[in-house]
């Protein structure tokens, strides 16, 4: 795949009054920190356990990579920056500060720029929270995962429930916005256990949290055990559905409805960065294994960098970009991606926008059928998955895309 010349500014599309499609979703920067203290058995993120990390080298590499990316995306304004991982709370505050300062220097930012950092809730990391805030982080997302010690242990986590709660209290005092993640439908978890745990979580939650049903991913320790039939006590598909239903019901009652399949917020407290993904905006991916979507001169590209930390580091030091490949996304594939992402949101997607990308509207017969079956609804030009539709969203998307 030849890397096309993206040097010219992408702000004003050559010959059209219609703004480029990505603008409906915004523009974000994702920075990946690929290291963790230990590998959790369920996790298929690009994370590595490394005894020593020379962060000064990483700082230089991030700086170079950001410069190169910025040169190719001038005329844009950053809506969000997200430090994800891996475990970004293992970054030295100077590393975070350098990346943030660089970004703010290289692009103009929105006045309400959101800067999120993912953190693991151990006491060591809590000690760095203030420095992160001083560097400019204004939103913390904590991987709490479970609120009882035996389950945390089973999930291979390095912290106790009490430690997580303490770290969370620290975070709340420091950051204007704090969110946390939980994983449910764990081994040997009963529906009743989860209802109780979720209510406890709700009593802690401020205005945002992510609740993920445990997914058994290929290539993880859980994946291997599962393949061997040795991962015991997982809920049946039916019970899994019950977990999901209970989650929706409890969170709605507490005023934190799902604004996306697994994300809950009080209105206005949604994660802006992730909304860029779901609203199919443009985003830069910097760091090992980071993905991006970038529009240039009316064409949209999918970018991906080297996954191995050393490879990315070496490549970024060499040419500043560490990119593995870059592939143009055909308009119909863009339409598919917009569909996949947009229907995950409670707000749904803009049908006119989808039709522009696809070159044709959805098959009206199919939409009507899914509507009459109670899976979709249309409202003010938007297509929205109902609660039933969201529960079986992958089947609905297949139905719409076939």
């Amino acid at each position: 795949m030849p890397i096309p010349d993206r040097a010219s500014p992408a702000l004003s599309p050559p010959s059209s009054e219609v703004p480029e499609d990505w603008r409906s979703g915004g523009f974000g920067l994702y920075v990946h920190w690929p290291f963790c203290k230990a590998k959790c058995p369920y996790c298929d993120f690009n994370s590595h356990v490394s005894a020593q990390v020379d962060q000064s080298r990483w700082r230089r590499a991030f700086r170079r990579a950001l410069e190169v990316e910025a040169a190719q995306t001038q005329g844009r304004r950053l809506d969000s920056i997200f430090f994800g991982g891996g475990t970004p709370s293992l970054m030295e505050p100077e590393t975070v500060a350098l990346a943030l300062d660089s970004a703010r220097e290289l692009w103009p930012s929105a006045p309400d720029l959101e800067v999120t950092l993912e953190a693991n809730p151990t006491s060591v990391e809590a000690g760095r929270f203030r420095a992160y805030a001083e560097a400019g982080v204004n939103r913390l997302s904590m991987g709490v995962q479970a609120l009882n010690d035996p389950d945390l242990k089973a999930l291979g986590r390095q912290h106790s429930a009490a430690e997580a709660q303490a770290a969370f209290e620290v975070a709340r005092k420091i950051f204007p916005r704090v969110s946390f993640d939980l994983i449910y439908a764990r081994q040997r978890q009963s529906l009743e256990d989860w209802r109780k745990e979720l209510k406890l979580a709700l009593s802690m939650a401020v205005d945002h949290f992510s609740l993920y049903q445990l997914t058994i991913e290929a290539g993880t320790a859980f994946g291997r055990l599962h393949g061997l039939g040795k991962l015991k006590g997982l809920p049946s598909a039916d019970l899994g559905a019950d977990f999901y239903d209970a989650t929706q019901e409890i969170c709605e009652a507490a005023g934190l409805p799902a604004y996306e399949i697994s994300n809950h917020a009080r209105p206005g407290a949604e994660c802006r960065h992730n909304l860029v993904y779901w609203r199919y905006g443009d985003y830069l991916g910097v760091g090992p294994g980071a993905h991006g979507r970038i529009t240039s001169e009316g064409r949209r590209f999918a970018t991906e960098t080297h996954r191995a930390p050393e490879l990315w580091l070496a490549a970024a030091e060499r040419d500043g970009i560490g990119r593995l490949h870059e592939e143009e996304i055909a308009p119909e594939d863009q339409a598919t991606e917009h569909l996949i992402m947009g229907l995950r949101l409670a707000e749904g997607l803009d049908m006119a926008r989808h039709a522009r990308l696809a070159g044709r509207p959805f098959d009206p017969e199919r939409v009507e059928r899914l509507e009459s079956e109670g899976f979709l609804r249309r409202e003010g030009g938007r297509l929205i998955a109902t609660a039933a539709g969201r529960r079986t969203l992958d089947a609905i998307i297949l139905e719409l895309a076939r």
Partner: protein
Amino acid sequence: MTELSQIRNFSIVAHIDHGKSTLADRLIQLTGAVSARDMSEQMLDNMDIERERGITIKAQTVRLDYKAKDGRDYVLNLIDTPGHVDFSYEVSRSMKAVEGSLLVVDASQGVEAQTLANVYQAIDAGHEIVPVLNKIDLPAAEPDRVKEQIEDVIGIDASQAIGISAKTGLNIDQVLEAIVERLPPPKGDREAPLKALLVDSWYDAYLGVVVLFRVMDGVIRKGMKIKLISTNANYHVERLGVFRPKMEMMEELGPGEIGFFTAAIKLVRDTRVGDTITEERRPAAAPLSGFKPSLPVVFCGMFPVDAADFEHMRDAIEKLSLNDSSFSHEMETSAALGFGFRCGFLGLLHLEIIRERLEREYDLDLITTAPSVVYKLHMRDGEIIEMHNPADMPDVMKIEFIEEPWIKATIMVPDEYLGSVLKLCQDRRGVQVNLTYAGSRAMATYRLPLSEVVIDFYDKLKSATKGYASFDYGMDGYEEGDLVKMQILVNAEPVDALSVIVHRSQAERRGRGMCEKLKELIPPHMFQVPVQAAIGGRIIARETIRALRKDVLAKCYGGDITRKRKLLDKQKEGKKRMRQFGKVDIPQEAFINALKIDD
């Protein structure tokens, strides 16, 4: 031309895997027909499918030159016959072309059902039989016990049986000597009008139709004008020769000799196995006896997965049938599956071979419906209708009675599994004809309706006996039966491609089985899908495929989009391999697997 006294013609009779091909290879090697360099394993199994499955579909011959211990030169002709019951008529014609057989029995396994079926054909053809005990290199070999078994079960003298190892080459020389000493030379009159047996024929891309024959009387020459008696068609012999196993051209072949010719014959269909070849100018007074055109006994529908492939499929089917006169086809339309063909076969193996060739050689993706037999419908107005497709069943009020084909099956099985074999036969409406023992093996002879055998009898037999049973059968006439048409309704709509004819006593069990099986085969939809079996509007079984409750990725962020889109593209492809039925998608394999029900 070779003197009759210097010719020996023979075939090898064996159960599958007892070493027929390996022995043939050794004989070819030892007589030097093929240099070691050109020797590839299993010289005679030509087609890919034959090699993969280790079966022979077309008869093959090889002519070997052998200098015997008596110091004289002999011509040995080996015909390798198809060993499978589907091709038993073809086997019987090959047997007519030779005077003797090597009966190869695996000394570690003993006599099996296929050994029996084939050896009886050899005996019927009047063969001299030389028993050969193969694989005596194996520690498990028990040549003495197997000799005894041959005498007990088959009733031929096995005292002179030769113990060999086709694998190591041990005692192959003794086999060659026995062929010369113990098999009779062919008979024939050189001066009589030409009379040759058409043993087999096939299409060759370079040569056109190649005919394999055995001269009984007279002489066939290059350039001769010949006549095929059953079709009364005349041709000029263009190429004449023998296989060694490569083609070698000859000017003429006389009585007792086996060879091939080409004669600008366009279609394999025009050459019928068992036909008599004679000279146009001086024809034989009477044709050879025993000729019969082979008729398909098992039918199924074949449809392209992608409707756009229909024309390509028509082409492919026509090309294949040019090369196989026993494979029939006619166009069929199904509400469920669109345009396709109703195809007829000699048996299940034949069906599978044709399907595999269509998919492999012509790159087609096919939906095959469950195989069905030919029913004879005796109508009230006296008409007799042969029904190949359950979907064609006329109004039952107009039918006086229905007949179905029966077979006679021989099953050989170690004692300890006999009980489950008898139960299986009973369940399939079998009627016991005979039950005998030879050592610790039982031999059960049963009459069974063919329809009870075509779907999964063989699989069931194998699993009930851990693979130790062997099975063979022959057609055994038609008989009246209390037969009804059972329809399958998916989401309340009848699916014609799933309807079957069943015996009334079996209807409920089969209906329940099919509904349960379809419940496994049809993926859950977003709504619940009832699956029902019905006879004449009366529901006899029902299952419900529950609605899909939850199907959504928990995490889908910026790094997951590409993966998710590619997965979706794959799923879209998968959907294309399903048939949409009203609102329900039925996977293509369901049409044939629905009938493979668990007892």
